[in-house]
């Protein structure tokens, strides 16, 4: 959640106040609409099964200095709530994830209606997290589920200052097939991506007039040796087009994202890593500027006993200095060192203590964070 502090102010400071108010109002109307839909969903079929859960967290952060043009404060406090609801009947499925945080962050992160094609595959329509990468489509907004407080810089959500369009509105084919003792999972997404503004990527909205109307397409496949085993190896490939009419010297961004990820878990040790290869084309109609860079992270976790887990993470980038697209994201964390402890002090509640040294384009700083997180029920 620390990354939210690092990037949040950029999103809040960019638009005019009147626009902010209108957006806030629209967000809450959309949340209310989602609640109305999900409460109606169980009546679709008599034998509907449903489930819900509530994630809550609160994070306090201290930085050694304010960074990125004063947009990042030295001390910050950020509470957040995420409500998840799922329902399924014989064929019909429904899922939503509503997320609210301080700093005017309230959104329908995901709202999906699906039709089960067979016992392993579902075709969904709605708003999704883009399956380009690992972290966002594994932990989503469930802070309690992830061991660390913050997520890697490359995996930050677009509406929290991330550089990849992490939401889209459209279709998603989500499935799994048995492969011996193991299982192959796949996700194929196609839809409308966000819009690039001077302050960052604006996620596509489910309701209201669409902006930009550019396509995003994604494919992700992974293999796990056994159901329930977190060990997995996978690859992803995506192509994004972002309208950038309000960005100086650009009218459109064309982005190709590819990479691999892996999780290795044995007894008390878990390693999670991903490698991204990204190519960005900024086109203003007359000229085209291209940049390519690679980013990787590796997180190691050691569970000393059922209550205490130590973790550390390294993030690094290559070729990022000359990418014209990255120049639009001064708070992109290209390199970072993270060390922390997680204390599961009660059932469904955890305290995390984390030190991080993120390196931004303008330099690095030290960051200390403490987070309480829980899930109910």
């Amino acid at each position, binding site marked *: 959640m620390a990354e939210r502090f690092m990037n949040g102010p950029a999103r809040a400071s960019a638009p005019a106040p009147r626009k902010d108010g209108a957006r806030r109002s629209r967000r809450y109307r959309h949340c209310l609409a989602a609640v109305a839909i999900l409460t109606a969903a169980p009546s679709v079929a008599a034998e509907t*099964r*449903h*489930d819900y*859960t509530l994630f809550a967290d609160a994070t306090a952060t201290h930085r050694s200095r304010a960074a990125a043009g004063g947009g990042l404060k030295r001390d910050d406090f950020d509470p957040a709530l995420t409500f*998840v609801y*799922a*329902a*399924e009947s*014989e064929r019909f*499925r*429904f*899922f939503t*994830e509503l997320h609210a945080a301080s700093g005017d962050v309230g959104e329908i992160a995901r709202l*999906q209606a*699906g039709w*089960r094609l067979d*016992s*392993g595959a579902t075709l969904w329509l709605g708003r999704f997290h883009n399956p380009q990468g690992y972290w966002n*489509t*594994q*932990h*989503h907004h*469930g802070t*309690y*589920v992830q061991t660390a407080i913050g997520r890697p810089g490359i995996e930050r959500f677009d509406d929290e200052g991330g550089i990849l369009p992490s939401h889209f509105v459209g279709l998603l084919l*989500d499935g*799994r097939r*048995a492969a011996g*003792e193991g299982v192959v999972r796949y996700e194929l997404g196609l839809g409308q991506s966000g819009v690039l503004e001077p302050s960052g990527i604006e996620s596509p909205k489910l309701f209201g007039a669409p902006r930009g109307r550019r396509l995003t397409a994604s494919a992700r496949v992974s293999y796990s040796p*056994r*159901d*329930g*085993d*977190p060990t997995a190896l996978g690859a992803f490939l995506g192509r994004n087009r972002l309208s950038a009419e309000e960005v100086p010297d650009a009218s459109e961004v064309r982005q190709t994202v590819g990479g691999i990820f892996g999780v290795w878990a044995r007894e008390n040790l878990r390693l999670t890593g991903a490698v991204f290869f990204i190519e960005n084309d900024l086109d203003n109609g007359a000229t085209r500027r291209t940049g390519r860079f690679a980013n990787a992270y590796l997180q190691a976790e050691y569970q000393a006993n*059922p209550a205490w887990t130590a973790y550390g993470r390294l993030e690094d980038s290559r070729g990022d200095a000359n990418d014209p697209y990255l120049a639009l994201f001064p708070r992109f964390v290209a390199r970072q060192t993270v060390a922390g402890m997680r204390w*599961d002090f009660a059932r*469904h509640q955890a305290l995390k203590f984390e030190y991080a040294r993120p390196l931004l384009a303008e330099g690095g700083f030290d960051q200390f964070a403490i987070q309480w997180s829980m*899930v109910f029920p």
Partner: protein
Amino acid sequence: MKRYARLAVAVCLAAICGPTAWAQPAPERRLVLVASADASIGNISPAEVRRLYLGLRVTAADGSPILPLVNRSDPFLQEVFLQKVMFLSAPAYERALLANLLRAGAVRPVEIDSRKTLLEALRAQRNAVTCLWAEDAEATPALKIVTELWRERR
């Protein structure tokens, strides 16, 4: 005197017969998956049981979904189920369920604390399944054993 003689005979008999009786093995513990007798659930593999209890869809012979019920009325049974069938610790199992809910919208299995309620739910829902000790399953009318999940090794 006669009383002492009777007591001595009783002690001797106990000494002769006792060890034989003590040496008899206790009934072998078996964990089984059960459903109501009229359920259309055929053979189900260990991988399918794991999938089912991770909130993922597994269908019966007639194509209808199988409904997993978690038996929390017996902590030892639950421990054996997690360790020997799911190959997960209790916290890891909870995390896996949350991950599947978050990732795939997978509805978590219903947990039932009372054995009476569990059996009522089994009888009420045709394709519901749960885990029981084999001797309990065999002693309960209107249930059938779908598959053996684990057998205690001696």
